[in-house]
C-alpha cells in the first residue's frame, strides 16, 4: 500500500463547477500538507499549505484536512479553463529543524475544465 493515495483521474468538469480533489494517507506522522498545481511541461507550483485539521481558504481554493480520517481535500470554486492541470497532494512529517523534510507525493489528479 502506498503511503499516499490519490485518484489519477482524469477528471473533466464544466466551467464554473466546484471541483473536489482528494488524497488519503496511511502515515499518522504526517503533519504538514500541501497542494501543488502542475501544468504540462512545467514544475509543480505550490497552491496551498496547511498543518492543522480544518479548512484553509485562499481565493477560489479551499484546503481541508481531516487528520482523524487521514484524508485531505482541495476544493476549487468557480473552476476556469486555466485551472486545467495536474494537482498533486504532498505531505511531510512535523518539525525537522532547518528544513530538509522529505515530501511524500500522491500520483496527481489530472483536471480538465471545459468551456
Amino acid at each position, binding site marked *: 500500500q502506498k503511503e499516499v493515495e490519490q485518484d489519477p483521474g482524469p477528471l473533466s468538469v464544466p466551467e464554473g463547477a466546484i471541483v473536489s480533489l482528494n488524497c488519503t494517507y496511511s502515515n499518522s506522522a504526517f503533519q*504538514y500538507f500541501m497542494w501543488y498545481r502542475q501544468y504540462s*511541461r512545467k*514544475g509543480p507550483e505550490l497552491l496551498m499549505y496547511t498543518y492543522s485539521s480544518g479548512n484553509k481558504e485562499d481565493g477560489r481554493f479551499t484546503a481541508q484536512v481531516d487528520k482523524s480520517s487521514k484524508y485531505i481535500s482541495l476544493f476549487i470554486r468557480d473552476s476556469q479553463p486555466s485551472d486545467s492541470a495536474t494537482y*498533486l497532494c504532498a505531505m511531510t512529517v*512535523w518539525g525537522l529543524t532547518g528544513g*530538509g*523534510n522529505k515530501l511524500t507525493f500522491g500520483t496527481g489528479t489530472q483536471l480538465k475544465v471545459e468551456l
Partner: protein
Amino acid sequence: SAVISQKPSRDICQRGTSLTIQCQVDSQVTMMFWYRQQPGQSLTLIATANQGSEATYESGFVIDKFPISRPNLTFSTLTVSNMSPEDSSIYLCSVDGTSNEQFFGPGTRLTVL
C-alpha cells in the same frame, strides 16, 4: 518564494552517456532536493543536498548513478550517469520555504534513446 532555474530544460541522450543538470536559486538556501517524476507517476525524492557535505540518498538511489554536487548555497548539479531508457524522466530540483513547504524548479525533461 525562491526563484529556481534549471538547465537544460530538456535533452535527448544516447544510452550509456551521462547528463549533468544544473539548478540555480536566487537566494541562499540550506537544503536543495532532487526529485524524479517518471511518466504517470508521483514525484520521488532522489537525494537531499546540503552545502559542504555529501548528499543523502533515498532508498533505491546511489551516488555512482546520481552524483550530486553542492558547491555553494545557491547552486547544485545532478548527474545521471550511464543512462538507459529507464532513466527517461523529468528531473526537478526544489528548496525549502520558511516553513516545511518546498518550491520547485521548472524541471529537466530527459529522454534516453
